[in-house]
């Protein structure tokens, strides 16, 4: 691939991936329609359009295998369109495989691997799909009307040529525009991508063909854009920056361009028939690579760090008795602006949960086939949005839960009938924003419920008394709820992965609600964003730490005199503190941090957090304030420890640990774990 084409690759991958996910959804819709024997001409055309664009883009980056697969799928859809928008059910599977084969090759392209040839057998099957159709309308005489140099003509498929002819038939002009990329052009912001975009507003781009060979500017690559348009040549030329770009007609001079030649086409072409489908996309959506957003975030992070340095400097001045009232005011204003900027940038990174989950219908379809169970997916996700970074991490957990639901929780149609349930099971995904900083997502099924006794027997432990304990049991590494591992869920890929993602990676919460015979609901509470955190900064045993505000339920004063100490515990152990009529265990934090406090008893302040649903207080020495911090996760295995969410720079150049108190308590609580279990019963 030449350098110019490599530049185009990222944009190609983004666009094709989007088209593929749309195509997947459309094909699923067609399958449903086929089963119900109903017609859906619109979906057929949309899918045709998607494949057509994939084909065109792939031709541009010169990936012949994808072009071939897309071509034959397109042909099958053309026949479906001619049949009034009906795709035969038998065609769905080969088409699915076609999409899969395209996806596979796109991935190869993305990873720089060699793109495998289109599978012969698949092409033949796709090709056979058109057998029921009526051959190639308008193919005869094609070469008589389009005037194309041989090098270009060979790159055009029959359907491209048909599309051009149909365009001419509908009274538009068929043109070839040559665009020559150059460094100079690129400096003006003109690349093949912007050219496509601009020309796309003025004309329908039938195909873009890269052509090697010497160019006027001394380059060796020309893009030939084949267009259908009503726009003037001069307007088109202007859009691509004028010469050396050229525009010429590709219609044989003997035929007047405006003569309708519709009689040469037995059948009008589907996608061109409906204005709405053909109209070039003119949305206000801008595609941005995530790395660029990360770059902006990184800069914002630097700004946050220097602001906290500034705040410290001002504080020192103030402490030294300098008049800093105005400075402090500016600092406050600056803080507000930073928050706003942060919100805007984070908003850029937000993706709709619905878009994240758009592959689930496909997953369900696959599971339906592999398990033979009847299952319906219900999505109730509204317009909720999630940071891309969170969404990317969360998706595998969701996929896992959905798989588990179909594989393990849902019964076979016979079992369900016997239990008086509808034969078709339901897997339901819902989400709503729980607060401005958290999103709650639930995965529910109406299956048999988790068999706590069986799970306990398999793990060789007593039957869990609560759903919290049951969840913990299920999340033990390697525990499978079935003796024989099924093909899809595998063995050892248990709930521990879901927990690791939700709780350990994202700092979220996981809970379980299950009723025998009625179904199971898993709830995942995750932060909307994980990069910048509003945190409390505090001191414990002479070191500073931070903890996310969102994790803290309350900060309480610890009155040493009113502490209740269970007699069995040594000094420094867990005590009980009263909080609104409820006894809450109080853990000296330095003990969990393996540090010496040098003082008697717990520190005077305590953070109350929820650990496995139960409040626990962690005593610290001093609260230093609340501020926004940039959370850096610790990547190295040496320092990936439970309870440490990451590190941050408070402005002194030293990493400050950002603690995850609930998991720190759970992981390092040791004996304290037993102390607060009885609390559950005591909660009024």
């Amino acid at each position, binding site marked *: 691939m030449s350098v110019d084409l490599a530049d185009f690759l990222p944009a190609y991958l983004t666009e094709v991936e989007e088209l593929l996910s749309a195509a997947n959804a459309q094909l699923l819709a067609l399958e449903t329609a086929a089963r119900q024997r109903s017609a859906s001409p619109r979906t057929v055309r949309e899918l045709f359009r998607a494949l057509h664009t994939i084909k065109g883009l792939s031709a541009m980056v010169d990936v012949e295998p994808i072009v071939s697969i897309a071509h034959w799928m397109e042909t099958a859809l053309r026949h479906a369109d001619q049949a009034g928008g009906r795709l035969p059910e038998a065609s769905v599977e080969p088409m699915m495989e076609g999409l899969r084969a395209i996806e596979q090759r796109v991935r190869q392209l993305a990873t720089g691997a060699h793109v495998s040839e289109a599978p012969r057998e698949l092409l033949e099957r796709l090709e056979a799909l058109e057998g029921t159709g009526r051959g190639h309308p308008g193919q005869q005489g094609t070469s008589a009307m389009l005037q194309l140099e041989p090098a270009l003509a060979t790159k055009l498929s029959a359907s491209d040529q048909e599309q051009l002819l149909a365009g001419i038939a509908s009274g538009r002009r068929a043109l070839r525009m040559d665009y020559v990329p150059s460094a100079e052009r690129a400096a003006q912001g003109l690349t093949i991508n912007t050219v496509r975009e601009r020309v796309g507003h003025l004309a329908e781009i039938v195909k873009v063909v890269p052509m090697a060979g010497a160019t006027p500017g001394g380059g060796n690559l020309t893009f030939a854009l084949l267009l259908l348009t009503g726009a003037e040549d001069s307007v088109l030329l202007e859009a691509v920056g004028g010469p050396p770009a050229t525009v010429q007609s590709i219609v044989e001079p003997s035929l007047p361009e405006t003569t309708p030649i519709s009689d040469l086409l037995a059948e009008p072409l589907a996608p061109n028939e409906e204005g709405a489908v053909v109209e070039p996309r003119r949305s206000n959506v801008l595609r941005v690579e995530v790395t660029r957003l990360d770059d902006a975030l990184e800069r914002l992070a630097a700004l946050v760090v220097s602001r906290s340095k500034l705040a410290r400097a001002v504080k020192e001045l103030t402490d030294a008795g300098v008049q800093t009232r105005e400075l402090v005011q500016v600092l406050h204003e600056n803080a507000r602006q930073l928050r706003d900027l942060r919100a805007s940038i984070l908003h850029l990174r937000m993706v709709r949960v619905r878009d994240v989950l758009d592959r689930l219908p496909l997953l369900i379809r696959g599971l339906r086939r592999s398990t033979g169970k009847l299952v319906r997916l219900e999505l109730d996700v509204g317009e909720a949005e999630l940071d891309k970074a969170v969404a990317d991490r969360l998706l595998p957990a969701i996929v896992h839960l959905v798989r588990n639901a179909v594989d393990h929780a849902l019964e076979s149609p016979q079992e369900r009938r016997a239990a008086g349930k509808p034969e078709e099971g339901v897997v339901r995904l819902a989400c709503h924003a729980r607060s401005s900083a958290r999103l709650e997502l639930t995965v529910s099924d109406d299956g048999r419920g988790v068999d706590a006794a069986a799970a306990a027997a398999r793990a060789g432990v007593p039957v869990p008394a609560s759903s919290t304990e049951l969840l913990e049991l299920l999340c033990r590494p390697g525990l499978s709820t079935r003796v024989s591992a099924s093909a899809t869920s595998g063995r050892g890929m248990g709930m521990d992965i879901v927990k690791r993602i939700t709780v350990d990676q994202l700092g979220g919460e996981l809970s379980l609600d299950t009723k025998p015979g009625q179904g199971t609901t898993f709830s995942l509470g995750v932060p909307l964003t994980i990069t910048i955190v509003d945190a409390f900064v505090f001191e414990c045993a002479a*070191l500073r730490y931070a903890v996310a505000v969102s994790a803290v339920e309350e900060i309480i004063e610890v009155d040493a005199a009113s502490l209740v100490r269970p007699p069995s515990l040594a000094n420094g152990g867990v005590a009980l503190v009263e909080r609104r009529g409820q006894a809450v265990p109080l853990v000296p934090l330095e003990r*969990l*941090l*393996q*540090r010496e406090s040098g003082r008697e008893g717990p520190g005077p302040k305590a953070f109350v957090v929820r650990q496995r649903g139960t409040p626990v207080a962690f005593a610290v020495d001093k609260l230093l304030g609340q501020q926004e911090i940039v959370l*850096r996760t*610790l*990547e*190295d*295995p*040496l*320092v*990936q*420890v*439970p*309870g*440490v969410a*990451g*590190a941050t*720079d408070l402005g002194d*150049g*030293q*990493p*400050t*640990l950002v603690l995850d108190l609930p998991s*720190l308590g759970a*992981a*390092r609580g040791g004996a304290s774990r037993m102390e607060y279990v009885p609390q559950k019963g005591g909660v009024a």
Partner: protein
Amino acid sequence: MSTLHVVFKVAGAEYAIPASEVMQMESFTSATPVPGAPTHVAGLMQVRGRVVPVVDARARFGLPPVDRTLDSRVVVGQLGSRTVGLLVDSAREVMKLAPEQLQPPPPMVAEQAQGFVKAVAQVGPRLVMLIDFSRVIGEEKAHGG
């Protein structure tokens, strides 16, 4: 062909590591302790905006701890995608070592050094031990959890 090595000292003994594996040298002020990390991890340090773990060579080699001095250095090494620091007593010298200068460590030494020493080089009257950086840093996951 001889290659450049960074030479550092731990408890009087001299060690070397290929300069190509060294990202930079830092003086050592303090590291943020990480509860639950392996005992040979001194803590976290910020190097060029990155937060990296620092391994204490003395703790790793089973030597008694000493107070850090102005000579203490952190040799920041790059191992694939990992960046890890190694806290040493001092590091002041860079030398070229030729392959023929390198001898496999005597079996007794190899055994005693837990595989940390890859080779021994005779440099004039001095003996310099070439360390296996990846072994010293260790793949061990933090315990706990």
